[in-house]
């Protein structure tokens, strides 16, 4: 036993040579309890302390703020965006949701962007974005031990899925010089997942059915921001409670976008920067060469137009407008889309769900609620934002309005 050394040193109390008394023993357990307590207190208090400091900013009118946003031309930016959606779409066992029905494109390992977009419509995701002028953008979806990146650099558009080591490549046509044409080629929906794009879409839909006010200030991603509050007027049937946009006080860039339902509770869509930097992104951010051995899928030229549109990043207006060949009843926030389907109803909550509408409507029937009215009878399928009424004679009424408004619309259409 080499470890037993002759006694040379005596211990002080801390190193406890002497047998501690019973009370002393019990007192020692206070140490772990105290540590746990301090930790719990820190976890509880730090967010509370951090959120108290709403910045003091000079007053600004809603009009000024909107023009500030419109004038904002931050060309360079990089940061992380957290996107949380809770549409109230029932999730299926096994972690899937209705979104998977719309997004399933056959099980091939292609890194085509469309299949990824559907993932964004439920749950919480972290995106990392970087922009340097109109020709260079990059968006990646952070996944567990993997990442899905979309890189637009000049004429090249790449998507890379590190999980399956596959890439997707598209080229912008050579003659397309205009900025607008580029935009068509960039998988639009992913680029739209930034607070700027969403805020712009919403602002364009502001009309006289809407109240727009500046509602205090906040701190987003460490920057001072004004909160722009957009609300449907009081007597609206809309399910939308409010839209809140945090606008950077400095350069007018929208930093956070929150869509809350009228019914209260968690926000339906919450997109905001968690970190943001308006400096030039690091060189090399927009370069991509597919790694050796990666499976590269070229963009199929012919059916580009048929690519289903993503839903996750669209706001309520777009959700109404996404189905082609539909009639819109009413206007502003209360508008209801009417779609006549000859056969089974198409999945109304997943526009572009060209795969298996039968399966989708079967599922929806299971979730729906029977309603009767002057129009006959039908099924109402509710999410937290969009409600849909499927009548038994094959009409579909969809809108971000409550059930009664749908029935009213159906009655009126009769």
């Amino acid at each position: 036993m080499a470890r037993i050394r002759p006694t040379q040193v005596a211990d002080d109390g801390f190193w406890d040579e002497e047998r501690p008394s019973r009370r002393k023993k019990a007192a020692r357990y206070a140490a772990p309890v105290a540590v746990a307590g301090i930790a719990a207190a820190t976890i509880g208090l730090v967010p509370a302390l951090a959120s108290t400091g709403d910045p003091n900013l000079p007053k600004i009118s809603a009009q000024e703020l909107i023009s500030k946003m419109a004038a904002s031309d931050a060309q360079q930016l990089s940061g992380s965006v957290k996107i949380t959606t809770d549409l109230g779409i029932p999730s299926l066992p096994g972690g899937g949701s209705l979104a998977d029905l719309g997004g399933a494109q056959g099980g091939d390992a292609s890194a085509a962007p469309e299949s990824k977009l559907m993932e964004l419509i439920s749950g919480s995701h972290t995106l990392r974005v970087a922009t340097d002028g109109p020709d260079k953008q990059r968006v990646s979806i952070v996944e567990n031990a993997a990442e899905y990146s979309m890189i637009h650099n000049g004429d090249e558009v790449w998507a890379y899925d590190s999980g399956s080591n596959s890439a997707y490549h598209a080229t912008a046509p050579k003659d397309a010089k205009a900025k607008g044409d580029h935009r068509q080629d960039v998988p639009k929906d992913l680029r739209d997942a930034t607070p700027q794009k969403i805020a712009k879409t919403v602002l364009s839909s502001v009309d006289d059915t809407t109240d727009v006010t500046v509602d205090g200030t906040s701190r987003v991603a460490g920057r001072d921001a004004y909160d722009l509050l957009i609300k449907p007027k009081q007597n609206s049937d809309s399910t939308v409670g409010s839209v809140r946009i945090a606008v950077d006080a400095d350069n007018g860039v929208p930093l956070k976008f929150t869509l809350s339902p009228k019914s209260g509770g968690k926000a339906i869509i919450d997109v905001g920067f968690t970190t943001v930097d308006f400096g030039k992104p690091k060189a090399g951010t927009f370069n991509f060469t597919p790694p050796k051995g990666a499976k590269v899928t070229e963009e199929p030229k012919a059916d580009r137009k048929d690519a289903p549109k993503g839903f996750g990043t669209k706001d309520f207006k777009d959700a109404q407008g996404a189905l082609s060949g539909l009639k819109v009843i009413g206007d502003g926030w209360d508008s209801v889309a009417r779609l006549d389907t000859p056969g089974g109803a198409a999945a109304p909550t997943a526009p572009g769900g060209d795969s298996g509408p039968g399966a989708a409507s079967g599922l929806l029937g299971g979730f729906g609620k029977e309603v009767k009215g002057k129009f006959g009878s039908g099924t109402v399928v509710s999410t937290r934002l969009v409600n849909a009424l499927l009548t038994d004679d094959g009409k579909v009424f969809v809108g971000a309005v409550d059930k009664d408004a749908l029935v009213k619309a159906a009655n009126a259409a009769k």
Partner: protein
Amino acid sequence: MSRVDEPRVAGTGARAERAANPPRPSPLWALALFRSELTTTLRRWRTLALLGVLALIPILIGVAVKIETSDGGSFGGGRGGDGQGPAFFAQITNNGIFLVFASLAATLPVFLPMVIAVIAGDTIAGEAGSGTLRYLLVAPAGRTRLLLAKFTTTMAFCLIATLVVAFSGLVTGALLFPLGDVTLISGITVSFDEALLRALGVAALVALSLVGIATVGLFISTLTSSGIAAMATTVGLVITAQILDTIPQLHAIHPYLFPHYWLSFADLLREPVYWDELVKNLGLQGLYVAVFGSAAWARFTAKDITA
């Protein structure tokens, strides 16, 4: 070693004083204890066998991937599906360094914590079980000091075990697959040197991810005098925590489960590095060390040693 020598020099100057007030044990004393603990641990056949198994896993993965892709196909390519194998598997054939990441991702959920649990569970309970603990305490090191030496040994073992996996993965990867510039999971290409540096960082992070369970194992080890019971309980805890971590209804407690952020080491392979979860992981492991370390101290210094 200059820091260690310092107290001794100071001590000679104040010899008279020392006679009156017995001095504190020098830091060297703790270091000697730690060194003796570490060599005792590493010399055990059991430990060597465990490390051998850990070294074997990357070799098995490498050979399996090599055989599967020997016909020129890519991993998982023939299977349809979405090609999402275990993390990093798809890239191994193109760059051997990914075998390091794949091996660490494969061993982190089960093998590494199991090995750590065996070592940590044995620290105090094993000595108590074989009747050597009282002899250790006869030495004037004091219980706190002994516990610290045991704790440091366990932490060192976390690092050793992780490095064994990483090194075995690197060697196997270099032998079986090509090396070269590495495409990070963000799609950005970096030089092999930088990738190697990141691999080292990943190994360090994995080792740090294990300190939580190691400290819990040490605490459990102070509760019993049966080494087997302590090991089994610790392994059981690892499994339980991971099962709880997969149940979505329990999401409220997930951020406090020690395995919750384990896979975050992959965030080091993003460009720019995504720090959020890395920091959370380190904070969580630190919390476990603080709580269970102090609990182990409270228990061990107040315990009646009967064997």
